């Protein structure tokens, strides 16, 4: 039986605040914009991050917001697409040094619209890529290792994903189809997709949620860009998924959110497959009671402890729920959800360091208040960006341990991983916890 919102809210509000996030900016997008996704990169070449925002509005508009300084963004500059848009990604698809946009248009037949960057933040229409019904989510990656960026698209109105291989000049091959839910009785309605190397073979695998059947399909990626499977995980009612190492075993696990009334819980799946391309295997992990209308989920290390935490949006609580990852190797341990009011319905969230303090801040779009919201992360004072990876070589290992011991007893910020002003035992434990990751 679902817990009433007031009771749940009281429970959550009683939780210890483990993160300190403050709203530092709200940029209105205009009435009835209904923003659905935000993507962040320097679009105009001025060294500041800019925003591209898609929207499900009748005017078929998306918007560009130029960065104006740390955490500051200018007024929205509209781009008329002519159709509602559900997702936008930024990348240089044609290798000309200017960032381009790929936008999923909520149309049937579905279209991914490429907008070519012309420098200075301007865009012209590029190719319209045909996909299946109602594309809702995009991912950009070089899936076949040919040095050019490819696109993966989830098609909500079909049972498919579309794989569009890039040619490197801003054009793409015709879409290849992947069936999301073979052998199921209902249409899966794929929505949110992720690319991660789940089997540790060096190539990206692909996970996508079914909003209808509540399952998760995980496809195994191969070096030539092909995907096989999927492996279909049991039904849990899924609105969104995130990949992160929940048990500190070095392999990405999956966290998923369920929609009310059958959802309301964050569920975890431990990656228990054998490394090196063996069959993908996941087993259910702990479940955490969450809000009642959770929607989006993303992983980011909010406290620089080397462990990705979870950030969820919840319309019933009008904001975010933050879960601290307290895992020790082999054991999933998540802290209680910490609510952070941000508006009404945060639809999509991107973590990024906007203030240059090595903390992951958050940029979100609120589909109900038609605004972009910037949250500055003040959980820790400025410190080493690499976290426990003190030599920034991509691994937490013996070399980092030696560096930490060399800084022992000092005031930081180098080596002060917990931000308490001293390099000590707590920092050593953080480093050791992140060792295998």
């Amino acid at each position, binding site marked *: 039986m679902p817990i009433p919102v007031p009771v749940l809210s009281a429970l959550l509000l009683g939780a210890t605040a483990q993160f300190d996030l403050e709203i530092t900016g709200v940029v209105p997008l205009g009435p009835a914009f209904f923003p659905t996704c935000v993507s962040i990169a320097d679009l105009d070449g001025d060294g500041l991050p800019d925003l591209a925002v898609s929207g499900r509005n009748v005017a078929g508009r998306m918007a560009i917001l130029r960065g104006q300084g740390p955490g500051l963004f200018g007024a929205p500059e509209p781009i008329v697409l002519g159709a509602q848009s559900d997702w936008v990604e930024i990348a240089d698809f044609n290798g000309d040094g200017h960032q381009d946009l790929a936008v999923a248009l909520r149309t049937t037949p579905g279209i991914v619209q490429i907008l070519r960057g012309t420098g200075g933040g301007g865009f012209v229409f590029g190719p319209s890529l045909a996909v299946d019904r109602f594309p809702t989510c995009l991912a950009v990656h070089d899936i076949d290792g040919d040095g050019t960026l490819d696109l993966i698209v989830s098609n909500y109105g079909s049972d498919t994903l579309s794989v569009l291989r890039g040619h490197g000049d801003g054009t793409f091959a015709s879409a290849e189809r992947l069936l999301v839910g073979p052998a199921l009785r209902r249409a899966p309605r794929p929505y949110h997709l992720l690319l991660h190397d789940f089997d540790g073979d060096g190539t990206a695998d692909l996970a996508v949620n079914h909003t209808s059947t509540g399952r998760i399909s995980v496809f195994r990626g191969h070096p030539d860009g092909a995907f096989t*499977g999927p492996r279909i995980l049991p039904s849990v009612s899924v609105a969104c998924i995130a990949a992160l190492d929940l048990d500190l075993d070095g392999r990405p696990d999956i966290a998923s959110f369920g929609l009310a009334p059958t959802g309301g819980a964050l569920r975890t799946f431990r990656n228990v497959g054998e490394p090196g391309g063996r069959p993908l295997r996941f087993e259910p992990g702990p479940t955490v009671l969450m809000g009642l209308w959770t929607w989006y989920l993303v992983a980011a290390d909010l406290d620089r402890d080397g462990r990705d935490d979870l950030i969820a949006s919840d319309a019933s609580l009008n904001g975010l729920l933050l879960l601290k990852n307290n895992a020790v190797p082999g054991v999933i341990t998540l802290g209680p959800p910490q609510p952070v009011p941000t508006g009404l319905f945060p639809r999509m969230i991107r973590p990024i360091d906007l203030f240059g303090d090595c903390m992951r801040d958050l940029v979100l779009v609120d589909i109900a208040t038609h605004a972009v919201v910037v949250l500055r992360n003040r959980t820790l004072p400025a410190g080493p960006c690499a976290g426990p990876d003190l030599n920034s070589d991509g691994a937490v290992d013996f070399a980092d341990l030696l560096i930490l011991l060399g800084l022992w007893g000092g005031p930081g910020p180098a080596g002060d991983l917990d931000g308490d002003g001293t390099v000590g035992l707590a920092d050593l434990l953080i480093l050791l916890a992140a060792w295998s990751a």
Partner: protein
Amino acid sequence: MHRIATAGAARHRITTAPARRWAMRGSVLATVTAVLAGGAAARYGSPPPPRACLESDADCFAPHDGTGCNWLPCCTRICEIDALCCNLVWDAFCAEAAQVLCDPPPACFTGVGDCFVPQAGPACGDEPCCYYICAIDPFCCLGRWDAVCAESARRLCATLDTCRLPPTTGELEQEACQAGSNDGCAENAFAPVQTLRPGTRIRGQVHAVIRRDTDWYALDLGAPTRLEVTLESEFPAELSIVAGTCEEGYEVLAVAHAVPCSMLTLHADIGADLAPGRILVVVGPGSGIGGIYDGIPCASRPPDWGPHIGRAYELGTRLRPPTGP
């Protein structure tokens, strides 16, 4: 180019008291009389519609104390889903179900243009073919008859209403229509599967009413082997070979789609022999863009519901020697 002759459905539609829903929309659709339905049933050899659907004069879209309602195709369909609507009372559930389900794609009645090429609007001019494709892909009638619809039509309409498998000498599937007794992992809870013996053939049937039937067959392998599965069907079919359990999740080893009345062969051992253990073979209605979730009822239906899509399939398996080390 192959064209499908228009069946008599539209020509036989009789304009008596229009159903409220259609009247509100200004539709030319009208109620089909019991007389016509009875004739159609006799022509198609299908069981008669529920008695309540023949006798009721009540509105399908409003709850009432009686059974059945006055729009025969709608009534028949709802009672197929929930027999209580014809046996006990036409309650709010029945009325709501009618609101949702008694909504055949009206575009097919007014569609124009060659079904085999994309059109500017929804639907196309060949009504049976239009119905058939819209059952597979509703967007062809709700959105636009685009290139995907035209491709499906070229591929599938040639077998419309003509593909019937010959009598079988194989074993029969043990699931009655809508019994759900071999649905495997297709739903949330694990359902039984039917055991399949290598080398034998199985004659089964599927249906698709809101959800599609999927028939799960288990094949227990005692030694490393290669597996070849064949499928011939009267409907566009999806054939999957999977391994795993419902509780931990299952992996799709291979999937392919069969065009009606053509033989599909699928190998589950690409690149390596199958390890000993249980392999599951799953058959369901589907096409290259996904499953078919509607338009294949258990019983034959009046022609006003569009063409009759066959339900039968013949599944075969063959083990081959392992490739060895």
